[in-house]
């Protein structure tokens, strides 16, 4: 945990992040409604609700696309790491916008006195066997359920309660949620419009998210591949190849990643997984003598991987040696909190 830990985790950066986020969302929805109502003035109250449904729905979809792009973007360029910071608030706001989209839909049915037709639509079981004609609102509801699950467990309490491993696995359901949303739009709004706007939006989002994930994944694989030295140790490179107050990440053949940090002449190796949320420690920096996670600022001492007092988190460390001018790391982990630094 960070030495700057506060019980109430609000700080200036979070306020700025949230203010920009809310500002962008408000501007998008406001602009969409203003432009659409100017181009195609709604004829009645139902038309205005329809406009709000589309504005909030498109906004939620675009937000989901951005959320899924933030991870690979931050890996491709550390300058984009601030986008990752507070991403959970982004997710909660996306759920709220999607919830408003669903709420406006109910309002539309209520306004038309047609709520029974919504129930009939959702319970027409023969339609579930169709592709075109599938009750697409069910897909939207499934996506909303996933977003609710993720938003409601986004607080650090749930992270500690479920453990980072389970929490991270649970939050991968966002990919399924994204799939539900794409098919909700493809089988719903896209079927009722011959225009190009919806297919272009969906296609661009799919291509963008896929391309970013593939690019970041391939680059990471190439970058972290380590050569094998004698006795199964991995070659990291000359000490000077490790950035000062930064790290080189190497991938063991088991697939686990090891972050080898250098602070002046002192070199230490720890797991690449932060104990808080499994963030990529090796992409962080050494600040005040502590390895600092780039995601949420959790800190660990370089020499033994222990969080500074009064915090108790410990990281797995690894043995290091200098051999033929190269730093080498033993991929067999030492017990968490074992002192294992060397001097170059």
């Amino acid at each position, binding site marked *: 945990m960070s030495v700057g830990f506060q019980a109430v985790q609000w700080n200036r950066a979070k306020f700025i992040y949230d203010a920009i986020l809310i500002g962008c969302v408000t501007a998008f929805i406001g602009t969409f409604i203003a432009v659409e109502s100017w181009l195609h003035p709604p004829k009645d109250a139902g038309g205005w609700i329809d406009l709000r449904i589309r504005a909030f729905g498109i906004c939620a979809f675009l937000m989901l696309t951005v959320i899924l792009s933030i991870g690979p973007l931050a890996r491709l360029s550390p300058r984009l790491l601030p986008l990752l910071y507070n991403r959970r608030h982004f997710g909660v706001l996306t759920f709220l916008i999607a919830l408003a989209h669903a709420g406006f839909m109910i309002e539309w*049915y209520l306004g*038309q006195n047609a709520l029974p037709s919504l129930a009939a639509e959702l319970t027409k079981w023969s339609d579930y066997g169709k592709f075109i004609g599938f009750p697409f609102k069910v897909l939207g509801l499934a996506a909303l359920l996933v977003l609710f699950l993720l938003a409601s467990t986004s607080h650090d309490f749930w992270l500690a309660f479920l453990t980072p491993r389970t929490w991270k696995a649970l939050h991968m359901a966002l990919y399924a949620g994204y799939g539900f949303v794409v098919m909700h739009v493809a089988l719903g709004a896209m079927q009722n419009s011959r225009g190009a706007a919806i297919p272009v939006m969906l296609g661009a989002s*799919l291509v963008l998210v896929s391309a970013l994930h593939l690019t970041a994944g391939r680059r990471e694989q190439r970058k972290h591949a380590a050569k094998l030295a004698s006795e199964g140790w991995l070659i990291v490179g000359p000490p000077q190849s490790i950035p000062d107050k930064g790290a080189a990440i190497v991938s063991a053949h088991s697939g686990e990643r090891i972050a080898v940090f250098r602070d002046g002449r002192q070199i230490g190796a720890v797991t690449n997984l932060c104990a808080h949320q499994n963030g990529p420690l090796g992409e962080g920096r050494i600040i005040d003598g502590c390895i600092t996670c780039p995601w949420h600022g959790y800190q660990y001492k370089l020499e033994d991987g222990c969080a500074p007092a009064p915090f108790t988190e410990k990281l797995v460390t690894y043995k290091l040696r200098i051999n033929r001018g190269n730093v080498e790391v033993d991929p067999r982990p030492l017990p968490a909190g074992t002192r294992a630094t060397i001097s170059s």
Partner: protein
Amino acid sequence: MTRTHRDWHRTIWIILAIVVGAGFVLALALRPAPAATASPVFQERLQ
């Protein structure tokens, strides 16, 4: 991300990308000509 998460992530992501991509293309290819009236999102709802 742990190794297990990474493996899951890669597998799930690729399967989902293929399924959703194929679903999107199929939905695009099969979409019918729209009716001329009513609001575009809800025209089928009251039928």
